[in-house]
């Protein structure tokens, strides 16, 4: 585990490997968070349109990405 100062330095690292790896990890985290939240919204009865609006993407896009895959927790059918 790095010290706080090392962390602060790394956050602004100009080494592309460090920066890009962080982007990759962030994307992975984002994908999973999106799945969890979309599933939650569906369970609460949100329509694809409402979810798309909240995410500021097209309804087609969100439907294509999330409909039909297994739900993370609990189930919903589409």
């Amino acid at each position, binding site marked *: 585990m*790095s010290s706080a100062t090392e*962390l602060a330095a*790394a*956050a602004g*690292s100009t080494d592309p490997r*460090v920066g890009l*790896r*962080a982007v*990759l*990890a*962030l994307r*992975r*985290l984002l*994908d*999973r*968070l999106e*799945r*969890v939240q979309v599933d*939650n919204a569906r369970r609460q009865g949100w329509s694809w349109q409402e979810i798309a609006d909240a995410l500021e993407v097209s309804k087609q896009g969100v439907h294509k990405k999330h409909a039909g*895959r*297994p*739900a*993370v*927790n609990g189930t919903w059918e589409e």
Partner: protein
Amino acid sequence: MFERFTQRARAVVVHARDEADRLHHPRVGTEHLLLALLHDGQSLAATVLRDAGVRADDLRARIEQEAGPGSRALDEADAAALREIGIDLAAVVARVEESFGPGALNDPPPAPRRWPWGRRYDGSRFSPRAKKVLELALREAVRLRHNYVGTEHILLGLLREGNGLAALALTRAGLDLADLRRRVLDAVRAGARPAA
């Protein structure tokens, strides 16, 4: 076609499926068969591979690199990378799990493929190449006049097929497929071990 497969050879087929699941790959390819062969260190195939200098973890890394990690779970490297930009992954996971239950951020298991008539046809998960390898394993056994198909025959099938990700990973690891084949046949002839 699995009637003649030994217990160990059947376990390889099952483990190949597990390897594909673990990597979140939808299909079971030759690379998963290869990883599965290394699973049981006592098998003849694993022994030959080990003696030829194959290291399971090295091979696994190569295969993951070639095949792509699918959508694998966030790991320690991701946590470290997020730490670099000031995000505490453990804290994020804890908050999400508090609301949505343990493992909420894990990848869901791949959906079993359902056919219209409601039956699951798992054979479809094997890629054409992987199926070919299993057919070749059977053929290798017949050729050697063995009345069973063991892990050594699966390995011979993999080497004979020669074009899958498994063969690529082995080649990239610096191994010669023809030499590996000789090693398997030597081991079979030596009968160093009972049917594996």
